[in-house]
């Protein structure tokens, strides 16, 4: 654990981290793009999730919707991860003991696991339920989990900021 804390202290001393923490507006500028990209991640993936759970967009085939939604989701996620990472470097030690932040990271890991299971197991049989027939429960569950997790990730992101800068 001490090695990890030492590592976080070192992270804070890297030139990039100093740039983030010392510049007057650097953090705010990064934060602006972080929030915008988080909202795009949720908005785009929610469309596919709503289709999977059967709540909306049944006129679209699952594969068609995936093709349209996922590139935007991933692009926005990459921006969110980079901007989030930058903000982390500035105060790595403080974030590492922020409960809301730790929950948020755990939830993102859970979302990743959900994507892996869906993509490599459930999605293999997509041809059978692509359109016009009910989606199997495993796909419904993946959609519902994704919706709940991303809502929670956004909420814990806000609480992270609230505990960092009360």
């Amino acid at each position, binding site marked *: 654990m001490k090695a990890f804390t030492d590592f976080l202290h070192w992270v804070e001393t890297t030139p990039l981290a100093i740039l983030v923490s010392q510049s007057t507006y650097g953090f705010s*500028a990064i934060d602006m793009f972080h929030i915008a990209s988080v909202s795009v991640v949720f908005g785009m993936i929610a469309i596919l999730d709503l289709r999977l759970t059967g709540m909306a967009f049944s006129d679209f085939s699952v594969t068609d919707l995936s093709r349209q939604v996922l590139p935007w989701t991933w692009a926005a996620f990459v921006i969110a991860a980079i901007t989030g990472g930058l903000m982390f470097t500035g105060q790595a030690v403080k974030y590492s003991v922020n409960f809301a932040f730790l929950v948020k990271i755990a939830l993102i890991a859970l979302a990743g696991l959900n994507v892996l299971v869906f993509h490599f197991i459930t999605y293999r049989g997509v041809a059978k339920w692509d359109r016009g027939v009910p989606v199997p429960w495993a796909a419904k569950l993946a959609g519902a989990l994704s919706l709940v997790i991303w809502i929670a990730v956004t909420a814990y992101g806000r609480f992270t900021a609230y505990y960092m800068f009360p």
Partner: protein
Amino acid sequence: MAELSQWVGSLPISLAMRRITWLVPMLQTLHILSIGIVLSSVVMIDLRIWRASRSGTAIARSEHFIPWMWTALAIATLTGIALMFGAPRSWRDGAFVAKLYMMAAATMATVALPIMLRRNDCGGKDAGVPAQLVGVAALLLWLGATLAGRGRWIAGALGG
């Protein structure tokens, strides 16, 4: 206008919002999530009218996503107004004013889009160039409004 902002900040509801610590992050979360739906709805319409996707007609695509977009915009606006009680904004804040202008222009573009698609030569099957341009303008304006909503710091950065 500064007095108005101060007066709003001293209202009981504003004081309550600062006391109930989870209220602001919760409202912010709802605000961010609903803005996400606004943006993704416009992206989905743009994908069809720019023919990156060819499934369905352009008009059907807009009829699918426009209701989601307006519902989400209503939630974003209500949560946005509620948040202003906790942290009143000023008309002197350029980013806030820019956000309101961009929202107004984006709303007009989003209203115009389905009308343009319906009036199109091919009856809304595909989009003409004007509708394509309005579609892109709508997305950029909503994106601009989203960024400006988090742009309180910009005035300071510009030395204002």
